[in-house]
């Protein structure tokens, strides 16, 4: 008797369960189609800095004010901690609904089916790309499918302190055609007249600056397949170090023991007024200027001898992607569209993530841009005319390669090994790391 009761109870509960889940699922689809007051909850994650965090949170608040049924929880960290966290979240299947993504990791994520193809949302009009030129989207495409939409365009640059030029009484050169020889001359002249030093060629990631130089020869740091170095002629690599060593010997270059310890912009030599230049991505101007007393300007990196093509390229500064595991992908897509196209949202964002990709947003922003943003908009305009196509995303072992390259740079600048030894080491170990 009891057994039968149990069985009936079991069948009943199973029926109840399937029934209720049916009801809930239909309820959900109804709410989505009619945009009813269904409560929805969404997590948004990005890496950033205090300026960006403030702006992004303000946009999320604006969206919530417009859509009272939506709750957005924001998650932000610096660049380093961000990927630790995202990788942990991949492993524990708890990725956010919308995440900021980077060109370097895009391919790895797509290959593991971690990201949603956004094409259906574009086709259905949830995400409006009507004002976006295809060239801005190519970085986010893999095999014809769209996995990330860039919120802005970015380019590597040399940023300089205008007040130092004034104090030294030096005429600013034509920065679209200046060479490394000009750079050296200016650095020495500034030092002699003002005592202001020159920053070593990118301390956080020396490879980025070398990449710009080697790209001017028509080659790239990595081969197209990422299995080896993309160059065999070491002339440019040697010159890259020799420029710095000559300046170091003359006392013009900041001592590597001081220059390489910088972790935050506040600790940087530019913020302390010790140097006249630094090397940053164009979207970092706001945060760099925030800690610098004097007005900064942004220009193209110098040309190498016999340059065959411009070394600078336009890079999608960062993408926004929707993970395949997102609990609320439709709301995430709507939010992404808001992020991208809404004029009020973009007024708040103020191109902090790079120059926006929809042409109407770009034009509107440029008209009302602050002086600081005008510099970035103008610079991106200059790069658009003086750039070569972007290389494929970094290969898998690029992390290890960068460490080796940075260590070798320090060894050479600290005089522990000679340029020839260092260059031989980079070529040999670089190929070995990439071949793994």
């Amino acid at each position, binding site marked *: 008797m009891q057994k039968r009761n149990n069985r009936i109870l079991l069948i009943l509960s199973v029926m109840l369960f399937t029934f209720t889940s049916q009801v809930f699922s239909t309820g959900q689809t109804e709410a989505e189609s009619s945009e009813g007051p269904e409560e929805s909850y969404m997590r948004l994650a990005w890496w950033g800095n205090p300026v960006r965090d403030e702006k992004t949170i303000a946009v999320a608040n604006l969206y919530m004010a417009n859509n009272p049924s939506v709750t957005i929880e924001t998650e932000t960290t610096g660049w*380093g901690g961000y*990927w*630790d966290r995202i*990788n942990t979240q*991949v*492993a524990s299947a708890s990725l956010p609904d919308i995440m900021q993504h980077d060109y370097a990791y895009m391919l*790895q*994520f797509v290959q*593991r089916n*971690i990201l949603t193809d956004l094409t259906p949302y574009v086709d259905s009009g949830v995400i409006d790309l009507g004002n976006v030129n295809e060239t801005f989207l190519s970085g986010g495409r893999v095999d014809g499918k769209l996995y990330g939409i860039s919120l802005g365009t970015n380019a590597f640059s040399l940023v300089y302190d205008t007040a130092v030029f004034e104090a030294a009484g030096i005429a600013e050169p034509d920065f679209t055609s200046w060479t490394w020889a000009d750079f050296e001359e200016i650095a020495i002249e500034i030092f002699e007249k003002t005592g202001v030093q020159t920053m070593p060629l990118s301390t956080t990631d020396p490879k980025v600056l070398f990449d710009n130089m080697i790209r001017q020869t028509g080659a790239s740091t990595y081969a197209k397949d990422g299995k080896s170095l993309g160059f065999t002629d070491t002339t440019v690599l040697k010159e890259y170090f020799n420029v710095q060593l000559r300046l170091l010997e003359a006392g013009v270059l900041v*001592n*590597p*023991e*001081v220059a*390489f*310890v*910088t*972790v935050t912009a506040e*600790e940087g030599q530019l913020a*302390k007024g010790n140097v006249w230049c630094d090397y940053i991505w164009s979207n970092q101007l706001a945060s760099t200027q925030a800690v610098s007393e004097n007005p900064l300007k942004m220009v193209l990196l110098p040309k190498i001898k016999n340059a065959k093509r411009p070394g600078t390229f336009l890079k999608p500064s960062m993408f926004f992607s929707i993970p395949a595991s997102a609990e609320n992908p439709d709301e995430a897509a709507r939010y992404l569209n808001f992020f991208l196209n809404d004029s009020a949202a973009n007024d708040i964002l103020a191109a902090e993530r790079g120059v926006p990709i929809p042409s109407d947003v770009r034009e509107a922003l440029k008209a009302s841009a602050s002086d600081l943003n005008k510099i970035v908009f103008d610079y991106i305009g200059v790069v658009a005319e003086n750039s070569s196509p972007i290389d494929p995303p970094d290969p*898998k*072992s690029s*992390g*290890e390669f960068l*460490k080796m390259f*940075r*260590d070798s740079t*320090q*060894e050479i600048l*600290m005089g*522990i090994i000679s340029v020839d030894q260092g260059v031989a080491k980079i070529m040999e170990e670089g190929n070995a790391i990439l071949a793994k």
Partner: protein
Amino acid sequence: MSLITNGSTGINLEKSLSERKAIIRENLAGYAFIAPWLIGFFAFSIIPILTSLYFSFTSYDILGTPVLNGVNNFKNMLQDKLFWKSLAVTFNYAFVSVPLRLLFAFFVALLFNRNIRGIRFYQMIYYIPSIVGGSIAVAVMWRRLFMADGAINSVLNLLGMDVHISWIGKPDTALWTLIILATWQFGSSMLIFLAGLKQIPQFYYEAADIDGANSFRKFISITLPHLSPVIFFNLIMQIIAGFTVFTQAFVVSGGSGDPLNSTLVYALYLYQRAFKYYEMGYSSAMAWILVLIVGLFTAIIFKSSSAWVFYESKEGE
């Protein structure tokens, strides 16, 4: 059961059964009370430890699925220059900072063992570095102190020395800033030493006074032997802490082990392999090597302890 009770004592059996029930009930209550801890222990210690052991024999890049590759990770370590470099840095760090910290802690504990007015206040002040010691904030402060334009150089310059060294940027001095940081955080060892000192019965000293022993003799023959179990405990704990140091090195070098890997302690390199190069398998293997090394040193200290650690309870035997 029947063998023991011999059949004749049915009542005894009954009694032992009810006793047994009571014991089981009591045990059950005990297990219920420690269940939260047990669950945590298995979920957050045992299972992750076994998983890491499995990962150490795989190639695993976090995003994908682990692929078994035998002992390849361990073989690759032999050829990994930075693996050896990080081992060397860690040994240097542990072998210099542990004795320094213990000596310092011991010295301060001896000072505090006297009856000075306001001793509690001093104890608190000296313990503070250890409370805040593991925190990011202190390591950040340390960075700032030892930078080229940091407070250390300012003080030296005020004293008339013309020093502009970037202590954290010079390969020869960077590790020393971490060692000084470790020595500065002597508080917890100091408190344990102090507790040990307070435990030493006063009549030994009184007896020694009657025999006319001087204070050095008293220190060697009474204080040190009585304190040896505490020294033993502190040594083990600090060796383990020394070999697994991470936070301080991570923050002071900005996560890079700079300059020129002079602060690339083992745990930091392990972290880089795991979260910068996405080689979870390799770093799991590294973690197990660290377990072996720490285990080896602990075993050596334990083995040697019979020669130098003195337990009062054994004395009477």
